[in-house]
């Protein structure tokens, strides 16, 4: 039991949540629908997608020994670029192809913003926490410079159709989230880049001594998370068609919460993309479940905060080697 729990504590937690909310829902819920209703679960995946897609990138960056606090701002900025660029006069003759242009521009912007983060971290040697704290403020500043306090809107029904299309009831955001999870998982477990990212995060000096180019690997990971933040914006705003300048605020914290809940270490070198997927689902389950049994948002945040600490404490207890570690 213990080794199994160690490896996949998060899935045990997800199962626990499902059982709890199903049972509690019977007594407390006002709706007569079961919590584990298929539609409800599909909705859950769809709602997890925006945070989840970014969390995949955050897992990679954190395994690599860095962190990216600017993802929320990148998310908002790319959303604005996508929606606004579709109205630019130079693309006027493109018809619905303009959607594709908007998407590509948004994804490209995300990658460029990530590249800027990565290059600064590499070339200056300043801690990623500080660099991305700065770029978080900077990128958010760009968001407000774009359109002041006003929302940026562009509702394109073709785009909405694509964003809300489904295969056997599974909608676009869920499909994108799952495909990204598989691809990033393959990247981290099967490729040279992934292996080197783990090595750099675990022991940077040993990685340098093994002839690994530390800087470029880190930069690529920042580009990846920038891309994924932009992809998240593309998926979400293609459906909603309107972005407020404050959208995406605090996303970085939700994303990090999900990643950490999945067991990735803040110090780098250890973590799993699949476990992050579990962390994302666990948080969304908690939100939906607490809503299902009638708790309000304030209560939801309180509970998530407590559970985060409880889970990490449990993880620490499970992963400790006897009582050998130092008392501090």
């Amino acid at each position, binding site marked *: 039991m213990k080794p199994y729990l160690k490896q996949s504590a998060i899935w045990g937690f997800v199962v626990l949540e499902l059982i709890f909310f199903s049972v509690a829902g019977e007594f407390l819920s006002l709706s007569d629908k079961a919590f584990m209703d298929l539609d409800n679960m599909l909705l859950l995946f769809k709602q997890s997608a925006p945070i989840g897609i970014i969390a995949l990138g955050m897992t990679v960056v954190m395994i690599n020994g860095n962190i990216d606090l600017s993802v929320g701002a990148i998310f908002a900025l790319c959303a604005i670029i996508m929606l606004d660029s579709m109205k630019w006069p130079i693309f006027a003759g493109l018809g619905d192809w303009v959607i594709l242009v908007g998407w590509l521009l948004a994804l490209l912007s995300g990658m460029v913003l990530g590249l800027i983060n990565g290059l600064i971290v590499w070339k200056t040697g300043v801690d990623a926490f500080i660099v991305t704290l700065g770029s978080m403020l900077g990128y958010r500043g760009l968001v407000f410079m774009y359109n002041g306090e006003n929302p940026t809107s562009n509702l394109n029904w073709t785009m909405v159709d694509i964003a809300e299309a489904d295969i056997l009831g599974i909608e676009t955001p869920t499909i994108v989230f799952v495909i990204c999870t598989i691809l990033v998982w*393959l990247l981290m477990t*099967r*490729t*040279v880049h992934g*292996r*080197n990212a*783990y*090595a750099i995060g*675990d*022991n940077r*000096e*040993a*990685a*340098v*001594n*093994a*002839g*690994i*180019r530390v800087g470029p690997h880190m930069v690529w990971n920042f580009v990846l998370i920038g891309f994924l933040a932009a992809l998240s914006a593309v998926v979400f705003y293609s459906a909603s068609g309107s972005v407020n300048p404050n959208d995406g605020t605090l996303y970085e914290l939700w994303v990090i919460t999900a990643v950490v809940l999945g067991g990735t270490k803040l110090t780098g*070198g*250890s973590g799993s993309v699949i476990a992050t997927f579990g962390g994302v689902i666990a948080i969304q389950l908690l939100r939906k479940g607490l809503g299902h049994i009638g708790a309000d948002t304030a209560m939801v945040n309180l509970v998530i905060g407590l559970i985060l600490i409880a889970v990490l404490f449990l993880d620490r207890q499970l992963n400790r080697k*006897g*009582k*050998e570690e*130092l*008392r501090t």
Partner: protein
Amino acid sequence: MTDIPALRLQDIVKTFPGVRALDGVSFQVMPGEVHALLGENGAGKSTLMKVLGGIHQPDEGKIFIAEQPAIMKSPLDAKSKGVVFIHQELSLADELSAAENIYLGELPRKSFGRVDWKTLYEKSDAILARLKCSFDSRKLVGDLSIANKQMVEIARALTVDAKAVIFDEPTASLTDAEKVVLFDVINDLRSDGVGVVYISHRMDEIFTISDKISVLRDGSYRGSLVTADTDEDEVTKLMIGRSLDSENPIVPAKKGPIALEVQGLSCGDLFQNVSFKVHEGEVVGFYGLVGAGRTEIAETLFGLRAPSAGKILLEGKEVKIASPIEAIGHGISLVPEDRKGQGLVLGMNCKDNMTLPQISDLTAGPFVSDGAEVAIFDQYRDRLQIKTPGWRQKVGNLSGGNQQKIVIGKWLSMAPKVLIVDEPTRGIDVGSKAEIHNLIRDLASQGYAVIVISSEMPEVLRVSDRVVAMFHGEIIREFTSDEVNEDNLVQAISGIRTTKVA
């Protein structure tokens, strides 16, 4: 002195889930006695010390201080009872003064919690004087040499009326000259009637300093010997339960052509105008005090430092080495000094560590090929006789000797021409040392050009075909294995340029 032991442990048992770390260990130190405690890694020395220091509580057994039963609740509690530790890894705050470090946690106070600086410095200076240290206790610890830091650590132990002082591998980072000073201090403690427990891997030190030797193996006590009546073989047998693997006699190298030549290489203040040659099939040992510039030369050859002047020639052709990547490309490999900090990724398994520098060449399509990796791992596991349950084992769980072999295997798999090994047996137990030494000799006979940097004289003398003695960043003298001996080597590394051939 007296017949009451300063410290006595009786039938200590300590179990961890799945392991009986200590199995009824009894052990005692008389006042004025230096008692060496020996055992291979994992024999239970550290656990015993943690029990003694109050970090672990024993499951069974008792601790007596001067025959009074004592329960150690914490390291601080142990210290207040007169049992103090000098640890292998220094635990000092670099940004504080020596005096503040000596009285850390128990600074003398005045009213309102203000620090009584005057008393602090007076008391600290007195302790440092007792240790015959010449530096001021106001000096920042970060500015002190390693040896002086060690003295601060010892001074810290002397702030209480110590009944027993435990030295845990105290010479790990000291040079031979600095060891002499440490041994003086230990001798002083002995004549003051303090019981000294001395833990070390190094046989020569133990025979120099100790009165008695006790041996632990597999968590149980294997007996005590009076140092004067025993010899290394007997101790070793007790320790590893068998006779030591004999070291292969040195077969003088069949020198091939020159693999590496360095001409007038300098790097700022670190080393100046260094020139030497290494032939294929030859081991060149670099010996000197810590800070003599040996490691820095290795780092420069490996592209980690930029030289300020001089040339590096590989097989007669001048090369510029700007990074480890380029060094590896030229066939230069470095087995670094700090195995865990610089050589291994401890969270990764054996296979991943072994193939780390070359996985980009082991791909099948976009993915790393497990099969190719395992093939390489198996090959070098067999060649170097690495003992591991399998390639999935995390390197962090291997013994020091096997970890070192993983690092060496990692570089051999890259087919290097020049192999630089910095402190090949640091922190490796006696049983595995001979194995590593034999391995280094084997590598030379297979035609690799090997540079060995070591602070252990027996090691340098053991493995080298030629010895280069360094002092303050300069090469003082080069010896062939015929002319080198302990005396002229000690002179050379102390900066005495002698032309007289011994």
